[in-house]
């Protein structure tokens, strides 16, 4: 039967590319943790943004009120030469302005700090995961299983799709010899037993 050459080429490329990275056993937990973390971050950012808006509006209203009061005083004061508010009032207004400015600056600094902390936490979590994988030998085991899986995967394709039985047998034996303790080595043993059984029947 003539196979579609485009499809054949794509499937060969897919086979040659090998399988993707090995599956992670803790993916569901990681997803839930990540969802909770992002939700907390979004909530904090929204609350901070709302606070900034409220303070900004408050500052604007306060400034407008101050200007209005100064204008009123200016109108109410007698004509020149020296119509100005008392030094105590000026000092009090300056103090209030300074306080509001300080609050706005503090809030902006907290936002920057929270953002930096969140980034550091994410970096730390990534590093912790990498260290945990290395310490538990999980990464090494995963690499061994991946290598064994790749060999058995290709051996299967050689046997079942290309009819290269001998090459497939060599590959199965290689997977068993190099990675005897892996699940894929067991699969390779099963395959060899199956092929031997077929040979006996013939």
């Amino acid at each position, binding site marked *: 039967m003539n196979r579609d050459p485009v499809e054949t*080429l794509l*499937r060969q490329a897919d086979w040659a*590319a090998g*399988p993707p990275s090995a599956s992670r056993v803790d993916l569901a937990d990681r*997803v839930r943790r*990540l969802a909770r973390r992002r939700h907390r971050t979004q909530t904090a950012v929204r609350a901070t943004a709302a606070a900034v808006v409220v303070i900004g509006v408050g500052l604007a209203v306060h400034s407008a009120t101050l200007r209005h009061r100064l204008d009123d005083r200016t109108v109410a004061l007698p004509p020149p030469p020296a119509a100005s508010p008392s030094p105590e009032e000026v000092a009090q207004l300056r103090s209030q302005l300074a306080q509001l400015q300080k609050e706005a600056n503090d809030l902006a600094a907290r936002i920057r700090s929270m953002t930096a902390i969140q980034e550091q936490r994410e970096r730390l979590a990534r590093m912790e995961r990498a260290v945990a994988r290395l310490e538990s030998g999980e990464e090494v085991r995963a690499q061994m299983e991946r290598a064994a899986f790749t060999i058995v995967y290709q051996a299967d394709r050689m046997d079942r799709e290309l009819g290269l039985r001998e*090459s497939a047998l060599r590959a199965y034996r290689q997977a068993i010899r190099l990675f005897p303790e892996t699940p894929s080595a067991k699969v390779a043993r099963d395959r060899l037993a199956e092929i031997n059984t077929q040979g006996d029947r013939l």
Partner: protein
Amino acid sequence: MVDMVNGPALALDGDPLPTEREDDGLVARLARGDQAAFDALVAAHQDRVSRLAYRLLGWSGDVDDVVQEVFLAAWKALPRFQGRSSVTTWLTRITINECRSLRRRWGRVLHREPAETGRVCSPAADSRMMNGETLGRVRRAVAALPVRHREVVVLHYLEQMPIGTVSDLLGVSANTVVVRLHRARAKLKNKLSDLMQE
């Protein structure tokens, strides 16, 4: 001969897709907020999602982050999932969308060559196996396809989905899928004709 419009969906490497009955049970449990159901969902579909993402992104790079984002999007969308489509279809759509987002963010398909996969082919088999250079040519040719064409090529030829299923997933008509496949094939033949054995 498989009915290419309405035939069953079967992944390229022969792994059976989770059955509709299994998915129905999961949907009911997910709707009740059963946490173990989400664990079962991930366990049942993780490999398939990983393989699909790997293919959609051009067989390159580590797809762990993409797979994580797919299931994170699924976790967030659980309250809205009503089971009108199967869990398999739902997750496939999410995977396609996440891969599109990733390509938009990065502005290109990842072109990093895959690590050595430990090929054990004998010299006699070389003529039918694909070496790294040829694989690179095929990958570049597929990467050069427009996104919409690349998706139908992966879903139909590599994921072995019938035209009808592909059209449902992408939200376009079957005729549109056929046209995109035809154009993708023409472009691939133009670039890789010397590699194709008729």
